[in-house]
C-alpha cells in the first residue's frame, strides 16, 4: 500500500470531473448507456476508495482510464467465456470479394486526403463514429480497446485470452470493415461534399 503521498488527497469532485470523458470512452466500448453509466460510477467510487494508491506518476485521467479498462476487460472475459468467438477462417478469407484471384483490388479504394486533412472535417469524424457503431460487437470491442484505450497487442492477448494472430485478424477485420463503410462517402475530399 502507498506509504507516501506526495500530492494533496483527491476529493470526490476532482474524480467526478472526469466522468464525461470516462462516459465517452465507455459508451464507445460497451454500446450500452446504462451499463456505461453504472460502470463509470463504480470506477469513480472505486477510485475514491483507493485514492491513496494514486501516486501521481500517471495523469489522473490515465489512472481512471486504467481502472475502467480493467472493469471492461473483466466483463468481456465473462461474456466471452459464455459465448466463445467463432473459429477464425484461415487467412482472412472473409475479405475475398475485395480482391481478385491474383490479389489485386477488385473494389478500387477511392482517392483519400491526408489523415490530418480528413480529420479536420466533422463529417468524417461523424462517419467514423457511425461506422464503428455498425461493426460487429466483438470486433468493435477489440478495436476500441486498441484504438481508444490504447491497449497493445500483448495486452489484448493477455486480457482477452486471444492469440496474437487472432488479435491481428480481429483488428484487420475492423479496419477493413470501417474503410468499406467509409468508402460510401466518408473519404470524399471536402470539396466533393457540398
Amino acid at each position, binding site marked *: 500500500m502507498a506509504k507516501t503521498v506526495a500530492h494533496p488527497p483527491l476529493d470526490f469532485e476532482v474524480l467526478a470531473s472526469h466522468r464525461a470523458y470516462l462516459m*465517452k*470512452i465507455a459508451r*464507445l466500448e460497451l454500446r450500452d448507456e446504462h451499463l456505461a453509466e453504472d460502470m463509470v460510477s463504480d470506477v469513480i467510487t472505486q477510485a475514491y476508495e483507493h485514492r491513496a494508491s494514486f501516486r501521481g506518476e500517471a495523469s489522473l485521467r490515465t489512472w481512471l482510464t486504467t481502472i475502467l479498462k480493467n472493469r471492461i476487460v473483466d466483463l468481456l472475459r465473462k461474456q466471452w467465456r459464455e459465448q466463445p468467438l467463432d473459429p477464425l477462417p484461415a487467412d*482472412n478469407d472473409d475479405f475475398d470479394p*475485395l*480482391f481478385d484471384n*491474383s*490479389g*489485386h*483490388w477488385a473494389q*478500387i*479504394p*477511392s*482517392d*483519400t*486526403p*491526408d*489523415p*490530418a486533412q*480528413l*480529420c479536420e472535417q466533422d463529417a*468524417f*469524424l461523424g462517419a*467514423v*463514429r457511425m461506422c*464503428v457503431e455498425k461493426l460487429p460487437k466483438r470486433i468493435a470491442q477489440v478495436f*476500441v480497446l*486498441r*484504438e*481508444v484505450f490504447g491497449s*497493445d*497487442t500483448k495486452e489484448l492477448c493477455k486480457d482477452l485470452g486471444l492469440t496474437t494472430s487472432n*488479435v*491481428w485478424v480481429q*483488428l*484487420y477485420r475492423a*479496419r*477493413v470493415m*470501417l*474503410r468499406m463503410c*467509409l468508402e460510401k462517402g466518408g*473519404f470524399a475530399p471536402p470539396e466533393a461534399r457540398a
Partner: protein
Amino acid sequence: MIEPARTKDDGVVMITCRQASVLLSKREDMPLGRADRLKLKLHLALCSLCRNVARQFAGIRLAMRRLRDGD
C-alpha cells in the same frame, strides 16, 4: 495494380495488394520485421491504390483519437 515479381531464388519480392493491405493493418499494431517493412515500402512506392488505403487506415486511427479526446 502490379504483378508479383520474383527473384532468381523464386522469393517473392513484390507482394500483392491483398498482402499489402494486411501489412498496413499489422503495422498499426506492432513494428514490422525488416523484410515485411521493405516489401511494403516497395509496394507502396509503386501502388497508388494501396497508398490510399494507408491514408485511410491512418485517418481511421487519428479519427478514433479525436473522438476520444475531442469534445
